């Protein structure tokens, strides 16, 4: 194959070594310059992980930037230097290859990816490892809302509350494993390692907090986990990153016209005390001392987000504006007339336990079925159902 052993550099292209060195330096400094743009592109660093991951990205960007400049520089240089002059019909130099050069440009990328791989492994090992004293939170993804569950056990009672003050059944629940408190927001505090244990009620979702640089899919039928340690107080959007259907784009934290946080947000408090006083204790008190009035209790249950109704229905009283399911304002008067021989209460009960039984004209059968038995998917105790129906029947047209 007439392999030529001449290297392009020595074959009369007339490049002085000084220029080669200068170009090399320019490429390296250019790469470093490109790498320094990394903090401007990524969201602010708010977790311990984000520092390591951003440093890794900056390193990769600097190397990638150098390679980019090298290739584009070679390309532009060749294109300008070796363009055919008008009327020049001759061929280029008959160089078929250069074993040394080819060896070099196989080895150097191999070394670069080896370094990147080792660096990535070390970052990965330290970012996804189990930390001591983790705050464990449960997360449930459902189309198209997030619910976060906190365990309330005997050690975590709000200040001033003792077990003796509780009603017997609630006290028993607290002592036997604890109550589950639900919120649409994930609350924690600065420098507290968090472990989120995630399940999905329907399709796959992905739990992503860009500010924390963490992401993990929720897999149907499996429990997955994710860990991070926030280092800056503030609010961070939680986003669903895995296509989950029509409302996928809405399955993220947002801000309404009044500047209020709506949907899934990570709230990082300044300290554990702030976390308890601003978030956990009020939530715990509400669960430990449920309102006697079923209407109040129903409102509280729905507002807590333990059931993902808000993502589809409209309830002005609660500030819900989902557009997928029927509007629930003044649902009581309509429910009473929907099916002959059934009271409004019976109608609502069936509609929640068996959503496919009656469909409001114009709406598809999209609602999950809420089951009465513990252990079934979408478990909704009869107590909760009674309270919710009681509350729904009081809703008026606003």
């Amino acid at each position, binding site marked *: 194959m007439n392999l030529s052993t001449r290297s392009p550099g020595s074959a009369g292209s007339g490049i002085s070594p000084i220029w080669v060195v200068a170009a090399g330096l320019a490429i390296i400094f250019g790469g470093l310059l490109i790498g320094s743009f990394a903090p401007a592109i990524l969201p602010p660093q708010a977790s311990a992980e984000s520092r390591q991951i951003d440093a890794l990205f900056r390193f990769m960007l600097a190397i990638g930037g150098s390679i980019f400049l090298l290739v584009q520089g070679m390309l532009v240089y060749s294109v300008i230097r070796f363009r055919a002059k008008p009327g020049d019909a001759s061929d280029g130099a008959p160089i078929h290859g250069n074993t040394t050069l080819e060896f070099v440009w196989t080895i150097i990328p191999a070394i670069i990816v080896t370094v990147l791989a080792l660096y990535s492994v070390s970052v990965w090992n330290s970012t996804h490892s189990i930390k001591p004293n983790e705050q464990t939170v449960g997360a449930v993804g459902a189309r198209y809302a997030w619910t976060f569950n906190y365990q309330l056990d005997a050690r975590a009672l709000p200040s001033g509350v003792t077990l003796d003050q509780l009603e017997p059944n609630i006290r028993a629940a607290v002592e036997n494993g604890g109550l589950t408190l639900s919120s649409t927001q994930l609350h924690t505090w600065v420098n507290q390692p968090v472990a989120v244990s995630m399940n999905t009620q329907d399709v796959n979702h992905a739990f992503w907090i860009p500010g924390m640089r963490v992401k993990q899919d929720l897999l149907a039928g*499996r429990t997955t986990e994710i860990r991070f340690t926030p280092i800056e107080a503030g609010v961070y959007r939680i986003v669903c990153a895995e296509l989950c259907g029509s409302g996928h784009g809405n399955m993220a934290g947002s801000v309404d016209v009044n500047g209020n946080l709506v949907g899934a947000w990570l709230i990082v408090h300044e300290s554990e005390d702030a976390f308890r006083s601003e978030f956990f204790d009020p939530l715990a008190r509400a669960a430990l001392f449920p309102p006697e009035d079923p209407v109040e209790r129903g409102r509280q249950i729905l507002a807590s987000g333990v059931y993902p109704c808000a993502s589809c229905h409209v309830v002005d009283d609660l500030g819900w504006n989902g557009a997928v399911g029927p509007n629930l304002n003044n649902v009581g008067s309509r429910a009473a007339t929907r099916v002959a021989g059934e009271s409004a209460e019976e109608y609502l009960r069936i509609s929640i336990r068996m959503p496919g039984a009656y469909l409001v004209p114009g709406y598809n059968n999209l609602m999950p079925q809420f089951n009465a038995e513990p252990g079934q998917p979408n478990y909704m105790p009869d107590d909760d159902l009674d309270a919710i129906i009681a509350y729904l029947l009081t809703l008026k047209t606003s």
Partner: protein
Amino acid sequence: MSEETKPTEAAEESQTMWLRSERAEAAAPAAASITDAPSPPVPAPAAEAVWAAARASHADAPAPRAPRPLLSAWIDERDGGDSTYFFGRIIPMPMYTVIFAVLAVITLVEVIISELPEGFLGTLLLVALSLAKAVLVVLFYMHLRSDSRFFAAALILPLIIGLISAMFLLAVPTTGYPY
């Protein structure tokens, strides 16, 4: 099923036909069609001269290797295929029949093993025996022992890729997230 143009004659015929029709249509007006561009008529001898000159530079083209039969010491056909050389003795049956007998015996052994109490050794034996059956069919009935090595590559490469991915699939439920 004749998806091939017949050897030489057809090729030559269509070639002369092309030359003929080119002459026939020389005077015809160019109708609107996508590729009606005229190419300069090429006298066949001119093209042949190019090939002849180029061929001279290819005198060192290596000749293809003849395929070597596998396992020929073990089993081979003798006297026109009516008897078979099998482990050093001559059996008065065609090679295909000998292989069939071996396959039938292995199948019988397999069924007997499967009725014995389950155990690791039995499973291993079953896998080995069925592998042996598959190899016999592939080598002798599908003629892989005497055919091109490319055919063997076409079997082995997907087997390797398939086995790697199957192993992975088997590992996922046990190494994956808990249910």
